[in-house]
């Protein structure tokens, strides 16, 4: 019998499994699909500290940023510590931006208007300036998730970390009050504890255990360009509007393009945010807006082609914070979901903290802001 069953082989589940195995626990990861087939396969791979307001999410992001750098040593996936450049349209916005950077207390450099070209030679003129965040990085999320699971299995011996794809969790097993495993379409799996890392479907999984965890989809489209022979864009580049969009409560469509080159050549332009349930229908207006914003940032992109677009559904909670920790309403069930547009960046810290709680250690960060039952009082 494993110590832990992790539901979900996305990047968050992979990190939970990896760190739990590293803590000496026997882990089984189950996913109804393949590894990284959920939102992880639709994400962009930004590992950002620049876009977070000071507070618990930034603390999580900073912890995670350091852990990603360690994990990058594992080899098998790309991690590029390329840095992010946030640009401001007006002097007023620049002031707000520098103010935020000061409050964040993370490494940054304020870049005057005339200095932007040193960072991004192809950036449009006319920006008032910007802030450069050297800690912002890029990771290939699908390979990262697969690699964490594989390396976890390699390093600690197969059997202590096992991946079972194509297995759908249908309910929970109980041991008195405690959760003691899962039922699946391929039989029951008894375990000492269960981690709900089902991403956007985390609310459904929680409901199977009779607890309310409101995780909802927030759709995002990404545009991908033709591959470039020479890199046009060096860092992650976005306008200050991105920061306000991320934290927005609006139902409607919001776009603020984050533009960046990738080692294989294409430029990624992402992403939109809108709440339309799980609707995959292509929205041309969304693609048009992303294109417009990207061309405003980099006029040289106007002549290059978009060759594809894809969408995914960010798992979000009403207060835009993830759910991390054991559920007092269902002891033995640990949640690790609801990371919205930052799950890739926040995965290692989440995995690390979950492993600490699973192993009975005191977590490095206070988990109170992320506690799973925090939505009860608001119901």
């Amino acid at each position, binding site marked *: 019998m494993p110590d832990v069953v992790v539901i979900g082989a996305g990047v968050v589940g992979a990190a939970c499994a990896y760190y739990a195995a590293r803590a000496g626990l026997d882990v089984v990861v189950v996913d109804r699909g393949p*590894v990284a087939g959920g939102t992880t396969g639709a994400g962009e791979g930004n590992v950002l500290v620049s876009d977070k307001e000071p507070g618990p999410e930034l603390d999580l992001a900073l912890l995670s940023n350091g852990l990603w750098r360690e994990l990058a040593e594992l080899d098998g996936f790309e991690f590029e510590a390329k840095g992010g450049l946030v640009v401001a349209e007006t002097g007023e916005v620049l002031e707000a931006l520098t103010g935020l950077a000061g409050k964040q207390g993370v490494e940054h450099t304020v870049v005057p208007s005339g200095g932007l070209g040193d960072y991004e030679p192809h950036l449009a003129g006319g920006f008032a300036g910007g802030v450069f965040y050297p800690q912002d990085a890029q990771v290939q999320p699908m390979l990262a998730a697969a690699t964490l699971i594989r390396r976890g299995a390699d390093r600690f011996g197969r059997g202590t970390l096992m991946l079972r794809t194509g297995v759908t969790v249908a309910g929970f097993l109980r041991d008195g009050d405690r959760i003691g495993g899962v039922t699946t379409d391929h039989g029951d799996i008894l375990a000492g504890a269960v981690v709900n890392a089902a991403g956007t479907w985390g609310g459904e999984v929680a409901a199977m255990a009779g607890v309310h965890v409101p995780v909802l989809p927030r759709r995002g489209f990404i545009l991908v360009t033709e591959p470039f022979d020479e890199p046009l864009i060096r860092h992650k580049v976005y306008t200050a509007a991105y920061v306000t969009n991320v934290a927005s409560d609006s139902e409607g469509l919001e776009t603020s393009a984050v533009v960046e080159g990738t080692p294989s050549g294409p430029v990624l332009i992402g992403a939109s945010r809108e709440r339309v349930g799980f609707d995959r229908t292509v929205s041309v207006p969304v693609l048009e807006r992303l294109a417009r914003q990207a*061309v405003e940032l980099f006029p040289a992109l106007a002549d290059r082609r978009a060759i594809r677009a*894809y969408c995914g559904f960010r798992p979000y909670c009403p207060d835009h914070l993830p759910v991390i920790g054991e559920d007092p309403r269902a002891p033995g069930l640990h949640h690790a979901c609801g990371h919205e547009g930052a799950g890739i960046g926040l995965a290692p810290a989440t995995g690390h903290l979950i492993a600490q709680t699973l192993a009975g250690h005191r977590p490095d960060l206070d988990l109170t802001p992320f506690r799973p039952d925090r939505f009860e009082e608001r119901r």
Partner: protein
Amino acid sequence: MKPLYDLAVIGAGPAGVAGALTASFAGLDVVLIDAAPRPGGQYFRHLPQGFNAQAPGALHHGLDGFTRQWETLRARADVLLGHKVWAVERAEGTVTVRCLEGDREERPRTVTARGLLIATGAHDRPLPFPGWDLPGVLTAGGAQALLKGNLVVAGRKVVVAGTGPFLLPVAAGLAEAGADVRGVYEANGRLGLARHPLLAAGKAGEALGYGASLARHRVPYRGRHAVIAAHGEGALTHVTVARLDSAWRPVSTRTVECDTLAYGYGFVPQLELPVQLGCATRADADGSPVVTVDGGLRTSVPGVYAAGESTGVGGAVLAEVEGRIAGRSAAADLGRRVPPLPRLSRRRDRLAAFAKALLEAYPVRPGWQGWLRDDTLVCRCEEVPLSAVREAQDLGAIDARSVKLLARPGMGWCQGRMCGYAVACLAGEDPAAPRRPIAQPIRLGDLAAPTRSPLEG
């Protein structure tokens, strides 16, 4: 140009032209859109004016009939050639067709209509094998397009290989045009359909014609043979031809010198536009996804019809019949009086049964996977070798999509059009209907600009 048409037809091949003409005769305001500068689609591909060809029909059976339809249509409907459709949307009973006009200075154009007929045809289905990306290796349809559309003979010494009856017109055309065709290698049995009633009934003449042409040019036609490797430094110089067993495993091999290989293992219907609209699809007899249609060629989305190869690969004659039925349905659904024509439906059923029999007689057998080596590229665009596909599977990719996510086959320029079938086979599944929200590459500057209708500058 009109602000709102009754019916927009995408594709000026036999299906689209017949559909547009039929709908127009039934009283609809029709616009026909095609990416190509000339009508005809793949089969009736037209030569440019510049050749002043006095006998263009020498390259196609039935060209006169098509040309008559085309001339009549041009007088009755609006025709937008050189318009690539990159997206279609449908809201509140109106279809919006987004096009790019022109082959280099593209301009965004938008056409709106109450109904849409999708007749976008198919492209070749190549299988990967060692050396398939050497210059000089072409798809069979590609060789045909060079000849029919440009009067360029694909090569001097040409080998034709793959499976299906389409190899015969390709080889015959090349031989007639002066190429030294070194052999036609059919991976299935040579006489797959010889005794099919329909072949006896009608198609026999055409097949015999190609056969006679090949005999006249002393072109050997071998069953149970395939090209399993192509060789050359920077360009093709020779191929390895294998005798196959019934599962397509090589039994013996030899070398054939050639500068060109034209090959194909069937066709892949182009489904990105119906998939964008949410039309239901099904697996055809060969496992390929095709649009699901009713007897009137209606898709699952109201007001959207499909005809020709998009509903299943069946050739030009079936495509035309389907186009006519679809045009009639579109008119009837918009309240025009269209008397029933059961004869047409029976004709379609017969031709479709024949098409199905063909797919069953010329399947792709699993043995081709054994022709690949670890370093054989599966995906040409992203240069993904077989070994990378296997590594992805080892990491937990259990389907084609996750293989793509981990190893990148299908992420490049062609968006999986060339490798999609092979990757699905390697992943052990039937190919899924392609989800390509952008059906044709579009410049970001054009995507960013507000779209204009053909009326405006």
